[in-house]
């Protein structure tokens, strides 16, 4: 007991020791295990491969990066992936901002928890189930969309980039709605009243008051929609038909040529790091 007491006393006095005790285990997990694995993976990208056994050979080479950056096909996949991720993020924002505003500001306070629960429901429903649901929606000739627009003379667009964008938007929409809702809830009423008292119309109030104040929350939501879209390859397999994204390239090369897969995987990581770095000042990270 004496030793326990000494430890307790020194912890009480020493702030640093307290922080270290709290952080030791979580940091061990995330730094050694997670960052360590990432580092090991990216070191692999400058190594060679034995073309017969597919085993990694620890010899320095930049060939993987030369292949990634000179082959037009990989450039195109990167652009396509970015395009999809940006589309998904924008569509999510366009749907989520008015929905969050309605739930936080227009709906009666009593119905707010119900509305929020209705939005969260798909967040709890399984990822695969949601993608699967859209597969039945988009199915050519026998899907729901086809049944819906056939009388109008159209037909289902089938599987491809459009289906992937819709599927991913559906998957990540709640991740956009929730932070924006939290941001809108904090908005002081007095500001909105002041704005309309001073003669601003609804649109002006939205663009000059609501949007700037909730911006960090919107950016926080975009971290999820953007990153999750960029790394996805399963939705692309289920809804994309022959359409491919960066994740699919990584997945296909992973077992045969790990160094090359690692080099390709570095692309979304760099894009994400640049994105995270550029938004740090907006305070979005505190809105997650």
């Amino acid at each position, binding site marked *: 007991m004496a030793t326990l007491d000494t430890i307790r006393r020194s912890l009480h006095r020493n702030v640093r020791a307290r922080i270290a005790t709290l952080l030791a285990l979580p940091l061990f997990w995330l730094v050694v295990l997670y960052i360590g694995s990432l580092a090991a993976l990216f070191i692999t990208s400058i190594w060679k491969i034995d073309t017969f056994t597919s085993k990694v050979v620890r010899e320095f080479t930049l060939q993987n990066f030369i292949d990634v950056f000179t082959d037009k096909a990989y450039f195109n996949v990167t652009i396509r992936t970015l395009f999809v991720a940006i589309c998904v993020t924008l569509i999510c924002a366009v749907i989520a901002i008015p929905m969050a505003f309605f739930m936080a500001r227009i709906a009666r306070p009593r119905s707010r928890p119900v509305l929020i629960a209705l939005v969260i429901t798909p967040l*709890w429903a399984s990822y695969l189930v949601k993608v699967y649901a859209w597969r039945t929606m988009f199915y050519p000739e026998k899907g729901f969309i086809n049944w819906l627009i056939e009388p109008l003379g159209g037909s289902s667009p089938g599987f491809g980039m459009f289906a992937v964008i819709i599927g991913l938007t559906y998957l990540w929409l709640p991740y956009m709605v929730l932070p924006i809702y939290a941001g809108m809830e904090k908005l002081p009423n007095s500001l909105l009243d002041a704005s*309309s008292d001073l003669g601003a119309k609804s649109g002006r109030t939205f663009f000059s008051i609501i949007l700037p104040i909730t911006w960090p929350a919107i950016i926080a939501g975009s971290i999820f929609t953007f990153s999750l879209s960029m790394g996805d390859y399963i939705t692309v397999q289920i809804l994309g038909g022959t359409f491919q994204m960066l994740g699919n390239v990584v997945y296909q090369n992973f077992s045969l040529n*790990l160094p090359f897969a690692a080099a390709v995987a570095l692309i979304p990581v760099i894009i994400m790091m640049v994105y995270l770095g550029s938004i740090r000042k907006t305070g979005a990270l505190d809105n997650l």
Partner: protein
Amino acid sequence: MRLSLPARLFLWTVMGFGFAFIYVPLTLVVINSFNKNTSFAWPPTGFTTSWWSKAATNEGVRDAITRSAIVALTATAIALVLGSLAAAAIARYSFFGRDAISLLFVLPIALPGIVTGIALNNVFTNFLGELTIFTIIVGHATFCIVVVFNNVAARYRRLGSSLEEASMDLGANRLTTFRLVTFPLIRSALVAGGLLSFALSFDEIIVTTFTAGAGQNTLPIWIFQNLFRPNQAPIVNVVAAALILVSILPIYLSQRLTQEKSAS
């Protein structure tokens, strides 16, 4: 707030459209699980419950559900401990490297799952030799920690430290303060973070693909493997529909929690 009529109409339209967008696909899956026609063309041609009884006795499904539950429970338990420890440190103290650490705690969800997946796979296969249920748990705990951390850190930020200070000014030591003051205040954040972390783990497929050994199917892996097999389509439909119905439970729980919070 006063809104013009067009603005009101616009918002109502978006809400209606948004909810239709969210619920039509899920409803279709549930309806299709009772569809007699195995091609699952829309609209359904007949009603049957036979797919449900077939799915209930399916060995692969049962095995996968059990494994998913074990993984999700263990990963969540690890995450609750590590996530709340880190949240306490980050939210209560300011120290050198604090910003870097907060950024570190975003990475596992901010970086694409496939990158985490192949990175862990590379380390596991090189150092452990084989993939087991244990490697799935480690992979899942890595992002579950972040979920718990976010929930608890947000709660700490909102609470401020005055209550804890008051407790210690009145003579309670740190342990007593934590037990009687801090813990009751962060309890609902722990439950919310734990629920979310359980759900994410139960549902995870990308990291799992790379960290699960052969034959170590979790439920999402089972669904994915059977998704493109036409003769398994009815069972997949039922499992999907069941998952939608089951997902109502955590929503109900989190509802209760928020009501409890606003009441107190």
